[in-house]
């Protein structure tokens, strides 16, 4: 039987971490774009679009991410579509991320005082102009900290994709454990790698939040 050095284990995990990072980035960017579209549907004046966005959020926030992964992976298979694990993982995580980002961002838009809308309206700006020049610039500043904070949830969420067979950090952990029979060492390293990814993000979210609160300056 081959002996595995700590470095062997770490190197394998590190290689798999690439996929965790890539999947997180794709989910976050894709979810961000989809979330932005859903946000404009939600805060716009079209009733049908508002309704769609609301239902979307309720469905994706009201069911476990794991079920969404299963449905993306096996559900499409029922229609004879062969979905590779990476695709199912990406689609499910994008959809899930979008649902949470819409709600975070909607809260930010609504937290801009109603007097701002009224002042902009009284100066003759139309709805889109009020949004573009007055509300969004303020909402954006408020949104930075919670958005960065949520990216941590996305990274942790990618761990679930190991269940449908996508080889990211967690999956690599179990594969390496099966080969080395050193679960404590392996999962200890896995946890350490997740921490190395998440901690800087949650820390910077905290710092950003404090900065915006203390200064309370919007510039």
């Amino acid at each position: 039987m081959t002996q595995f050095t700590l470095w062997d284990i770490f190197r394998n995990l590190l290689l798999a971490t690439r996929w965790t990072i890539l999947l997180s980035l794709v989910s976050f960017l894709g979810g961000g774009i989809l979330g932005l579209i859903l946000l404009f549907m939600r805060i716009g004046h079209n009733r049908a679009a508002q309704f769609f966005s609301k239902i979307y959020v309720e469905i994706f926030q009201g069911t476990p991410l794991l079920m969404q992964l299963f449905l993306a992976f096996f559900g499409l298979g029922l229609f004879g579509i062969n979905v590779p694990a990476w695709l199912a993982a990406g689609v499910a995580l994008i959809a899930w991320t979008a649902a949470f980002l819409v709600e975070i961002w909607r809260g930010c838009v609504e937290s801009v005082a109603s007097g701002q809308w009224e002042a902009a309206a009284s100066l003759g700006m139309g709805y889109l102009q009020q949004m573009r020049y007055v509300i969004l610039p303020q909402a954006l500043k408020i949104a930075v900290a919670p958005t960065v904070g949520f990216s941590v949830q996305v990274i942790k969420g990618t761990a679930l994709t190991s269940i449908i067979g996508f080889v990211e950090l967690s999956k690599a952990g179990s594969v390496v454990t099966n080969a080395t029979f050193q679960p404590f060492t392996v999962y200890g390293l896995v946890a350490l790698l997740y921490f190395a990814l998440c901690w800087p993000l949650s820390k910077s979210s905290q710092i950003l939040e404090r900065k915006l609160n203390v200064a309370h300056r919007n510039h």
Partner: protein
Amino acid sequence: MSLIEITEVRKSFGPNEVLKGINLDIEPGEVIAIIGKSGSGKSTLLRCINGLESINSGSISVAGAQLLPDELHLKALRLKVGMIFQQFNLFPHLTAGGNVILSQAVVKKTPKPEAEAIARQMLDRVGLAAKFDAYPDELSGGQQQRVAIARALAMRPIALLCDEITSALDPELVGEVLAVVRSLAAEGMTLLMVTHEMKFARDVCSRVVFMHHGKVHEIGRPEAVFANPQTPELKQFLGML
């Protein structure tokens, strides 16, 4: 023809009828003070004139154009009638200059250099030429309110609606804002202001409107209204002060 014609205007919020048939015609250059108890519908009336609230019945016209609740008509109306709020409502992410430039650039498509020149001119007019680059949170309440006035003036309105514009200010800052309003009145701007500054109303206004329970309860020249109130409600209101 009057500049602003308000005819039989009614406005309800659900079952609560707040304006119960308001009639008021305002001539160009008039300065009108609206007084009355809290909840009598003063703010609602101003908000209806500016289209921030839609009316249930009656009509409002400004410079001959009927107020209609679609975006095009509202925009046309708001170019003619500016509004100043109790809470200033400056845009906190823009400098004083940026606040005054924004709507000119966005709504009127005024070229940047020209909009900036007008902004400087308007800030100078309210005595804040030096604060062009200051952000709202670096200004006192009185200064912020004066920037708000400059911002409205930059749109070249023919009338200004002022809703208790000094009520959120520390007493020592009230004077500087009223001085600006006084100078606007002297230059012939049409002003419709809800106010608790009775001395100011007496000195500057051409007419005083006393609102009570959603109606114009009494109206007249300030010396008549203040010295010789006709109704017990106005007597009581003035006595309360």
